[in-house]
């Protein structure tokens, strides 16, 4: 436990000083922990656990966009769990409202919701379609086609700086859209 958390802190310090590979490793390492927490939260709230991946993605986006609020001299785990708890509560609240509406409207068709083992996320994907074309294309190129920023710039005849801006704006507006009820 302790060891794992120290490793996270180390990786985040490297990430902050520009090591994107360390950042990638860190996000990979925290994801299963976040997933387990999201499933626990959903189960406790009596909601289908197959929605956990949407919450995981929301937490990851918040971690990314708020990482400048982490103090590099402090351990990383308490910061991470504070962000995750905040996002989980937020998500459960929003789902609570939505499910409440669902029960009123479709009480008879509500399934027993078998917990899917391989949960897939739908919310981020759905919001991607509402982004401006340029941002969507850049995100698609990097996320789905695994292109580098350099290759993406070449493909769309953009400067690398413009790709970076479109990428960041895309991620930021995704996060904003996810928060809208």
């Amino acid at each position, binding site marked *: 436990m302790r060891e794992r958390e120290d490793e996270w802190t180390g990786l985040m310090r490297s*990430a902050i000083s*520009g*090591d*994107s*590979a360390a*950042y*990638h490793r860190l*996000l*990979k390492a925290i*994801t299963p922990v976040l997933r387990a927490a999201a499933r626990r939260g959903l189960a406790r709230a009596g909601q289908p656990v197959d929605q956990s*991946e949407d919450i*995981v*993605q929301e937490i*990851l*986006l*918040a971690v*990314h*966009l*708020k*990482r*400048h*609020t*982490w*103090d590099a001299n*402090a351990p990383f785990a*308490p*910061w991470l*769990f*504070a*962000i995750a*708890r*905040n996002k989980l509560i*937020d998500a459960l609240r929003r789902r609570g409202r939505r499910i409440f509406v669902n029960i009123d409207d479709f009480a008879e068709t509500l399934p027993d919701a078998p917990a899917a083992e391989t949960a*897939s*996320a739908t919310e*981020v*994907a759905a919001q*991607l*379609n509402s982004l401006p074309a340029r941002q*969507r294309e850049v*995100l*698609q190129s*990097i*996320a*789905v086609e*695994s292109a*580098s*920023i350099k290759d993406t710039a070449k493909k769309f005849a953009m400067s690398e700086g413009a790709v*970076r801006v479109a*990428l*960041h704006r895309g*991620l930021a507006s995704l996060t904003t859209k996810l*928060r809208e009820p």
Partner: protein
Amino acid sequence: MRMDTDQLIKTLAADNAHRPRPVGFVLALALLAAAPVSILMFMAELGVRPDVMTAMHNPFFDLKFAVTLALAAAAITISLHLARPEASLRGFVWLLAIPAGLLVAGISGEMMMPQRLPMMTRLVGNNSKVCMTAVPLMSLPLLAAALIGLRHGAPTRPALEGAMAGLLSAGLAATLYASHCTDDSPLFVATWYTLGAGLMTAIGALAGSRVLKF
């Protein structure tokens, strides 16, 4: 188009080069941008009191600035601390005791001196209505700026963070107002400035609970 979590992680890692500015920097920038609005309101409607040069020799005049600036500094420090998601108030609330303690010291000091005016007259003063209106009005642009700045943070208690934004805006606006007001009695400050700051704290908490969630 779909995006599974591995793809999202890849995308976030690609954006690692983007370095967001520290919250303190953004807050300072926002407050600096809003300050001219409050100063303009002050210059247009109130202005510095004409006898300011003599007033500066009165320790009770100077005490007003010590109190309002201590309040602003404490609220700024606490709000920046609360902009971190894992922050707790422990070890920080006592900062607010500094302006309160200065006021109490001022009141006791005044009590021990011979006074020309009775206590209630000093407390009510001549400017209570102006004070009650001017401090909140001049606070509003600063509160808006503080909220914009603090949105850059990750406060997990948005209402509390908003309250601190209200308090810091009131501290700064009251600093301006103090140079206009001829009521220097700490009793006046403790009553009317506090009411104005309390109102801004409530407005800040209300606004914060809406706009400071992340």
